[in-house]
C-alpha cells in the first residue's frame, strides 16, 4: 500500500517559475526522502530530511517537514526544462521505503 499521497498529481509550469509539490503520509517516520524519476526509468535520490528537521536545502531544492501534520513539501526554484520528471516522496519503515503516488512535473521552455 502507498504510504504517501502527493499533491498535485500533475503540474505544468514555465521555465523560471517555481514548482511546489506536497506529500502527506500516514505513520510515524525516521526520515522522509524525495526521489525523481525520468520517463519511467530509475529513481534518483534528491534529498533526505530527518524527523527532527523542519527544513533542508540542496541547490535549487527546498524541503520542509511538518511531523505534526504528517506532511512535507518540495520546492524547486527557477525550474528548467530538464526538471521535467515525476517526483516521489518516500518514508522509511523498518528498512523499506514506502512511496507515494507521485507528482508529474512538466516544465515548458
Amino acid at each position, binding site marked *: 500500500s*502507498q504510504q504517501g499521497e502527493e499533491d498535485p498529481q500533475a503540474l505544468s509550469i514555465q521555465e523560471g517559475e517555481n514548482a511546489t509539490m506536497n506529500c502527506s503520509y500516514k505513520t510515524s517516520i525516521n526520515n522522509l*526522502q524525495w*526521489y525523481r524519476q525520468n520517463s519511467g526509468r530509475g529513481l534518483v535520490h534528491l534529498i*533526505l530530511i530527518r524527523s527532527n528537521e523542519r527544513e533542508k536545502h540542496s541547490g535549487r531544492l527546498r524541503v520542509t517537514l511538518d511531523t505534526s501534520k504528517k506532511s512535507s513539501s518540495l520546492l524547486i526554484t527557477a525550474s528548467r526544462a530538464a526538471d521535467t520528471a515525476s517526483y516521489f516522496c518516500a518514508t522509511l519503515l523498518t*528498512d*523499506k521505503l*514506502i*512511496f507515494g503516488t507521485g507528482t508529474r512535473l512538466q516544465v515548458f521552455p
Partner: protein
Amino acid sequence: DAGVTQSPTHLIKTRGQQVTLRCSPISGHKSVSWYQQVLGQGPQFIFQYYEKEERGRGNFPDRFSARQFPNYSSELNVNALLLGDSALYLCASSLLPQDSLIYGYTFGSGTRLTVV
C-alpha cells in the same frame, strides 16, 4: 565506479511463464532491495536482502522469490506470470540496510517486464 546495473532492460513474456531479473549493486554495497512499479503508481517494496539473508518481504505472493549471491548480486524470480505482473522492476543497493536512514538508496534503471 559503476552504479547499480540491472539486466535485461526490457523483457516480454507470456502468461504462465517464469522470469529471472538480475541486479548488480554498487561495488562494496551489501544490501539489495527490489521494488515493483506499475504504470502510474509509486514503487512498491518486494524484498530486501543483506549478506545473502532475506531481511524483509513485501505483500507479494509466493510466486515472487529472490536470492543474493556471495558477490552481493541478486536475482528476482517470478513464476506463473500474470498480466498484472507487467511493471518496471527496480533494484536498489546500499552499503547497509539501514543506510537509508542517512543517505537514501541508489537505484538502477530498472527492467521493464511486459506480460502478454
